[in-house]
């Protein structure tokens, strides 16, 4: 039977191409996911290990136990005396201020190793620094335009960039340019390397240079393990406690684990998406194999006639699956490796990520390929069983149409119904209680249940959607009928697409709903769109001129300076009370607030009935009106402010605030730009601008990026499902060759035939997308309610535009999927078609 299976795959390679592509994509996704973690750790190791990359052994301080300089010195000496140790390097560093060519800043100064071999950086140009010299990293040299021979002034550690601090330092000559370190602790900062004497000279007794580690180079032929043990003993004897002696590789591993906290948040998430892709792929494979088995009914029956038993038939189908699965899984793994290698190669070209490294964990290849093969064979189990059900007599029915067995598994339907109902209840409960942990399994269960029942509701819906197609005449009518000719096949094809679309629609709706919920929540959290708290960086308070300038910016609807009206005791703290002019009321988020001359507006939960406001002339007791915002400064009307008398300008605990209302239609990017422009224009730091609009923009940016990433990941599953649509259609076309030829002989034009098949594909893809969108909206809303219901009012908000584009993509992809099969069907002449029995 192996011969039969091999011959089958070889002869009908084209029929397996689509399924092969689907498996390849899914396996590639999975394998790439498995490589992401290893590669990011390897990349991290590249950066973490940068500082001691030339060392063989590293003596590092234990956690929370810095190396004491004196103890480290003696430990280094003891290590140097140990047999097998050729070089030692006591790595130290200090943060120091520097000045050069009119600019000043802070950087990291490290000492040079006495043995050049252990130097923590690579010398690009010039020479290692000698007395009175310093080496500068290339990025800094470029930025400060420092070449060899230039002069650089370094201030003593603990100093500042102020002129008097720099004056206490010393001038050094740049002797060479080193490669910038990728160590995450020093990366991006100016890096200097100088002999020990200079570092000592710049490190006053009150802020000594920190000892990072002691690096050791081994003598030729020395055994790392033996030397490590000897050094460990020597170090303990020298009185260095808590320190560890490791090989450079081990030390890197420890530091990486310390930095990542030993966990990796990305891989599980990616893995979940990869599993969705694998599952969808399994559906496509199962569907393809059932179609192939249905088409081969006659061959299978012939085999049964001449003596193949059921086991042999089943094995033959499974061997085919094994072959296809193995070939495409191996291809998938290779593609994944090539992709990752390409990605890492590209990253290495980028200046900020030159440390990227490709790592292929040994388990990724067998695991990725194994999962693909297993999935393919498992998916072929049911079709293989269907193949054994072919009666030998089928070979003797000369012209009967091959038809897949369409037994509706009653048990499956019932289980599906029960799962749907139970899942729906749990999901509803989760949504009502705003508990995502309850809702998640509920949603999962109900979705699985719905998928199991897909054969109940998908064909009737496709049929109903096909009704308008009758307007296209005979081709339309035929397309509508053909689309549900084999309900099982239609359901399986649609289900594969449904999964991806549901998940995408769910994410879109969930994101949109969460966005709206947060918007309304933020509206009450902050008093205004944007508030700028003074003072400016130059120490001056914001004034009316700033308000006028701010109002001129594009996107700013209104601006007003809110000035202090006095002080009040709030929770035992002297708090500034502000005056709201009548024309400034429109700046408030909550337009329903009313401020009269007897009341004070206060933050939510202030817990007092009255507040006494003290001004420069007197005080007044006011009725407290609580607002919905937690960050609302006490506000009084202009008349009250006049009555109590405004405090003198420049009081440090009551600086005027600049309040802005921004245009409603500003998107996140524009708002972030406006924030940066305003900060620069008004001379304030960006963090001084806060408010609902800013929070909204920041939050929306996060949501948008997440949505983009998630949609991109799910797109893999959708792509696989669309391959499935094309595959089912092309197999159906093969099966209906005679019928198509008959229609052509009876006068159907090529165009009409192509149109008929296109319509069929659009019907299946479109209905699958519509069901998916409807389900996704429901799940997205309930999911958002479950996740956010506890702290925000969640109302469903449907992103019609995005969902519309999902539908459009599905329909267009369905059309595209029909192009090749339709061309093939139309190319056949009526006579040829009828001759193919």
């Amino acid at each position, binding site marked *: 039977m192996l*011969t039969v299976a091999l011959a089958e795959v070889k002869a009908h390679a084209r029929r397996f191409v689509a399924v092969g592509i689907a498996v390849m994509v899914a396996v590639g996704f999975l394998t790439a996911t498995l490589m992401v973690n290893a590669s990011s750790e390897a990349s991290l190791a590249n950066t973490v290990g940068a500082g001691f990359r030339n060392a063989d052994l590293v003596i590092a301080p234990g956690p929370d136990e810095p190396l004491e300089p004196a103890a480290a010195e003696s430990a280094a000496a003891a290590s140097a005396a140990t047999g097998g140790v050729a070089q030692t390097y006591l790595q130290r560093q200090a943060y120091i201020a520097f000045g050069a060519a009119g600019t000043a800043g802070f950087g990291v100064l490290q000492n040079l190793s006495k043995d050049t071999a252990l130097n923590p950086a690579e010398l690009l140009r010039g020479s290692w620094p000698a007395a009175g010299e310093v080496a500068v990293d290339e990025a800094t040299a470029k930025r400060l335009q420092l070449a060899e021979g230039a002069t650089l002034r370094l201030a003593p550690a603990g100093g500042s960039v102020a002129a008097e601090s720099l004056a206490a330092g010393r001038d050094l000559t740049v002797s060479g340019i080193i490669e910038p370190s990728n160590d995450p602790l020093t990366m991006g900062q100016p890096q200097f390397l100088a002999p020990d004497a200079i570092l000592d000279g710049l490190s006053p007794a009150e802020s000594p240079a920190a000892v990072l580690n002691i690096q050791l180079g081994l003598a030729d032929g020395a055994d790392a393990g033996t030397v490590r043990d000897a050094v460990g003993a020597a170090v303990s004897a020298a009185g260095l406690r808590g320190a560890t002696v490791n090989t450079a590789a081990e030390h890197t591993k420890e530091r990486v684990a310390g930095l990542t906290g030993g966990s990796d948040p990305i891989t599980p998430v990616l893995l979940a998406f990869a599993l969705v892709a694998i599952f969808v792929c399994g559906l496509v494979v199962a569907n393809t194999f059932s179609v192939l088995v249905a088409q081969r009914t006659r061959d299978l029956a012939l085999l049964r006639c001449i003596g193949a038993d059921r086991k042999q038939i089943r094995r033959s189908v499974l061997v085919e699956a094994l072959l296809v699965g193995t070939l495409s899984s191996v291809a998938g793994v290779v593609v994944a490796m090539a992709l990752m290698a390409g990605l890492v190669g590209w990253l290495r070209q980028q200046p900020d990520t030159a440390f990227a490294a490709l790592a292929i964990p040994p388990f990724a290849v067998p695991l990725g390929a194994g999962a693909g093969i297993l999935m393919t064979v498992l998916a072929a189990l049911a079709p293989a069983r269907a193949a054994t059900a072919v009666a030998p007599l089928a070979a003797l029915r000369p012209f009967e149409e091959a038809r897949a067995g369409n037994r509706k598994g009653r048990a499956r339907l019932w289980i599906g119904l029960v799962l749907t109902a139970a899942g729906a209840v749990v999901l509803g409960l989760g949504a009502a209680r705003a508990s995502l942990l309850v809702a998640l399994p509920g949603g999962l269960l109900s979705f699985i249940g719905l998928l199991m029942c897909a054969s109940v509701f998908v064909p009737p819906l496709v049929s109903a959607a096909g009704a308008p197609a009758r307007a296209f005449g005979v081709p339309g009518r035929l397309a509508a009928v053909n689309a549900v000719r084999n309900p099982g096949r239609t359901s399986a094809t649609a289900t594969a697409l449904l999964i991806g679309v549901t998940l995408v629609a769910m994410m879109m709706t969930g994101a949109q709903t969460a966005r709206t919920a947060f918007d309304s929540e933020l509206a009450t959290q902050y008093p205004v769109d944007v508030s700028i708290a003074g003072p400016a960086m130059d120490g001056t308070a914001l004034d009316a001129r700033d308000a006028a300038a701010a109002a001129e910016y594009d996107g700013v609807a209104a601006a007003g300076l809110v000035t202090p009206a006095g002080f009040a005791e709030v929770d035992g703290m002297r708090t500034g009370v502000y005056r709201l002019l009548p024309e400034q009321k429109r700046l408030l988020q909550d337009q329903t607030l009313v401020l009269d001359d007897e009341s004070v507006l206060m933050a939510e939960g202030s817990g007092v009935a009255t507040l006494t406001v003290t001004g420069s002339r007197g005080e007044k007791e006011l009725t407290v009106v609580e607002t919905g915002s937690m960050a609302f400064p006490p506000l009084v009307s202009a008349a009250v402010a006049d009555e109590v008398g405004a405090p003198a300008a420049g009081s440090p605990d009551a600086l005027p605030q600049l309040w802005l209302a921004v245009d409603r239609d500003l998107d996140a990017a524009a708002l972030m730009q406006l924030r940066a422009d305003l900060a620069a224009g008004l001379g304030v730091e960006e963090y001084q601008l806060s408010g609902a609009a800013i929070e909204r923009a920041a939050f929306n940016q996060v949501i948008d990026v997440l949505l983009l990433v998630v949609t991109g990941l799910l797109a893999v599953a959708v792509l696989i499902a669309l391959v499935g649509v094309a595959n089912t259609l092309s197999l159906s076309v093969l099966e209906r060759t005679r019928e198509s030829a008959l229609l052509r002989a009876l006068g159907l034009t090529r165009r009409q035939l192509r149109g008929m098949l296109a319509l069929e594909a659009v019907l299946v893809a479109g209905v699958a997308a519509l069901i998916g969108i409807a389900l996704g909206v429901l799940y997205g809303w309930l999911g958002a309610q479950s996740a956010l219901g506890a702290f925000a009012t969640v109302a469903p908000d449907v992103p019609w535009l995005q969902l519309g584009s999902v539908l459009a993509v599905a329909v267009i992809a369905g059309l595209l999927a029909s192009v090749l099969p339709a061309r093939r069907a139309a190319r056949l002449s009526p006579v040829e078609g009828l001759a193919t029995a």
Partner: protein
Amino acid sequence: MTTRTEQSSPLPVPSEGHAAPAAATDALCKTYGSGDTRVQALKEVTVAFESGKFTAIMGPSGSGKSTLMHCLAGLDSADSGSIRVGGTDITALGDAQLTRLRRERVGFVFQAFNLVPTLTAEQNITLPIALGGGKVDTEWLDYIVASLGLAERLKHRPHELSGGQQQRVAVARALLTRPDVVFGDEPTGNLDSRSGAEVLALLRRSSQEMGQSIIMVTHDPVAASYADRVVLMNDGRLVGDLASPDTDSVLSALAGLGA
């Protein structure tokens, strides 16, 4: 079924002599459908097919000739009565045993779709033995291939062969296992008259020279005239039996059925 009456190795057919019939039925009944669509295809058919002879079963459409052959070949089950193939009662055998019977003791030549399209002619011929995991008797294979004139065509796929060549490959496959009986279901129905005559002459030679028992269903009097004996059926019953038939005697016998 723990006891198995069938023999594990193929029998040398000619040595069986004329003692047992190649295939036989006793009071065989078969009904299809139920209610209004109920059709009694076979009504107590008792017939024996001699070993080493070429027998044709004839009759109009719906006479039950195909059903009789399906039952004899173990492709269909009987409602009552018994079926014997080469001395084995196959009436109550299960699927696995019937499969073995078909693989080892029965050969088939169908009207069309005889061959697995993805395999070469040679692979098709040896398929039943490959399925059983046995060894091909190469001498016998060479003899059959040579006498059927297929030596040049062994590496070809079915679609590269003419209709007559395809049927000859099917005959070779049926003969290779030295089965108790070869069944032909309108083996020349899809062929032009020259190719048809070639295949029929081959079948007759196989019977005469190799002592192969052959049972062929046909509605073509010319085809039936190649047989040693013609069994006539109508309405689920045996209605006639001709020895050493020719085209004219078959035609007149068939004409008698219409009356």
